[in-house]
């Protein structure tokens, strides 16, 4: 059973880490599966973790990038009140947008925490021997990895997700534009919540075409919005039955049979 931090406190305990679920991880049908997978990994690694539950609200990232600073400040200050109230020190999240905002934007508003993206924590758990990659389900499968902008180019984390993927004994194939040159999925900067401006093509189509050039079995991702965009792209290309878009945590859960 996943517990909220309020429940921990009521029992007079403190979790090692707070799992920041985010809006997508809480409400989006596809992203909820990622939250579940990551919770299973934390649990299997013997990490005590809590969520904020109904006390969590949007970090404010899309509002801020849309230009709505009032709304961002309202969301963020409210979250900081809750986080500081529980004396939270360490946060992990499966959403690179939440990760970025919690890590880089909350300090100026009075919220200082150690913030990790879930791929970084998973890599640490493997390094510490708390999580073993075993099963070999993906041996020989072709996996291509899509760098999200907010984990990759904006926060410089290119290696942790690749290190994890390499341990699956899969055949990791890079797209032409990867790491610092990775192409956006098209969702960032609050684009997720509006129609595109007029153009020749949708960005996610451009990206999925590039991914398909690597002839993959799986497109691995680290962001709920990238997953949505890439899956939409696959559907538009009628490839949704041939290629899967999976979060890194889901790959581990399938591999280890968690």
């Amino acid at each position, binding site marked *: 059973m*996943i517990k*909220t931090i309020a429940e921990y406190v009521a029992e007079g305990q403190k979790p090692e880490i707070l799992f920041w679920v985010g809006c*997508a991880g*809480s*409400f*989006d049908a596809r992203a*909820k599966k990622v*939250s*579940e997978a990551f*919770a*299973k990994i934390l649990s299997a690694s013997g990490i005590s973790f809590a969520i904020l*539950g109904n006390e969590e*609200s*949007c970090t404010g990232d*899309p*509002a*801020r*990038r*849309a*230009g*709505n600073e*009032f*709304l961002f*400040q*309202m*969301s963020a*200050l*409210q979250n900081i*009140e809750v986080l500081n109230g529980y004396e939270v020190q360490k946060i992990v999240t499966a959403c690179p947008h939440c990760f*970025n*905002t919690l890590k*880089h*934007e909350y300090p*100026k*508003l009075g919220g200082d925490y150690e913030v990790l993206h879930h791929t970084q924590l998973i890599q640490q758990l493997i390094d510490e021997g708390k999580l073993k990659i075993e099963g070999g389900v993906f041996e020989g499968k072709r996996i291509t990895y899509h760098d999200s*902008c907010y984990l990759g*180019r*904006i*926060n410089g984390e290119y290696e942790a997700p690749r290190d994890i993927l390499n341990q699956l004994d899969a055949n990791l194939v890079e797209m032409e534009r990867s790491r610092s*040159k990775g*192409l*956006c999925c*098209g*969702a*960032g*900067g*609050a684009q*997720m*919540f*509006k*129609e*595109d*401006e*007029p*153009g*020749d*093509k949708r*960005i996610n*189509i*451009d990206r999925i075409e590039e991914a398909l050039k690597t002839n993959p079995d799986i497109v691995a991702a680290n962001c709920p919005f990238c997953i949505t965009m890439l899956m939409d792209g696959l559907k538009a290309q009628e490839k949704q039955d041939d290629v899967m878009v999976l979060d890194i945590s889901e790959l581990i859960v399938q591999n280890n049979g968690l």
Partner: protein
Amino acid sequence: MSISQIVFTLFTAIVFFIAFKQYRAIYANIKLGKDEDLPGDPSWRWKNVLLVAFGQKKMFKRWIPAVFHLFIYLAFLLTQVELLEIFIDGFGGGHRFFVERIGGLYTFILNFIEILSLLAFVATIVFLWRRNILKVPRFVMSEMTGWPKLDGNLILIGELLLLIGIFSMNGADVLLQNLDPEHYPDTGTLAVSSHLGPALFGSLDTSTLHVIERFGWWLHLVVVFGFITYLPFSKHLHIFLAFPNVYFSKDKSRGEMDNMPEIMNEVKSMMGLIEDSGEMSEEIPEFGSKDVMDLGWKNILEAFTCTECGRCSSVCPANITGKKLSPRKIMMDIRDRATEIGNNIRSGDAQYIADDKISEGAALTKDNYDDGKSLFDYISAEELYACTTCNACVEACPVLINPVEPILAMRRYDILTNSAGPADWLPMFNSIENSGAVWQLSDERAAWIKEVEI
């Protein structure tokens, strides 16, 4: 004092007087922007200057143009030695001031300059070919027609003229060293001119050679002076501004948007986190950036530093997929708008004083300026709202320009002050405000955990 010394001195004085006024105007244009905090300590800044500006580190992400650019850049740096000698000779009336003073070192330096100049000549031809015949996509985008296109070519042609000047001067000199050694001291064998000179001018007599040598000398000088006074109108200003622009770049995460303390404090007092100051401002505050005066001065420095290479736009996901947004155009528009405002302010014309700020004897300044236009007349909402904030443009820029910052600052104005923006965003805004999530859903936030068995 010879006639040529007098002409040289007058000419130099005039050019430097004009240039002083021009560069002062560029400085004033940049200072139209707001003062801002620039995080970063001097050791971090100097390291950047060494690696990114002098070292061209970010250029080498695309190594073919980087190598050719390096030839031109190194030739430019080293030719300053020869230019220094031209000035000394021009004022002093001598010929090749350094040659007998530093001897073998002179031959060494001159050979270095000659080889790099030859490479720069090849590179310049390659660049003209890439722009005009190969038509590399980033050089032929919609913002690269008219003046920007001509500007790019004029600069390259100017560079060819500089090099033609150097090689005419040195080539004739090499021959004159044999014919008239008293006036033309031995420079030693030169890598290019000792071969090129005899091949081109070998059959000419002393007086013709003398004319060619002087022609080369004056051509080089005139083109250098041309460059100095032309650069303030040109994208080529990057040869100077790249250095301060890199020095003043901000040492902060790409992921951190500038905080708006005035809004933060307003919200804090609404939430009862801080005591309300009780003072109600009479003026309705404006948030975000409507015009260049509302940007930081560093944003404007970046706009004047931009050399329109288009690496940003060639990796912009919006631009690649045919949207109107081009990060390069954003920077060009900021520069052009700052130039327009700067020129109007320097005209002192009272018609540019805002109606509500007209008073007896008031002088036109950036604080009372109003020409009825704004940066939004240059940059459309369609461009601003196409940005995914992916930072590919920031990553791509060789001189640390950040086009995302002004884009987001203008979004802030449009949303907060204009109450405009895409209607699609309203449900997301309302939902965050009312239910703390980006989507309005009936489920509780923690409902998902009930489906999980751990």
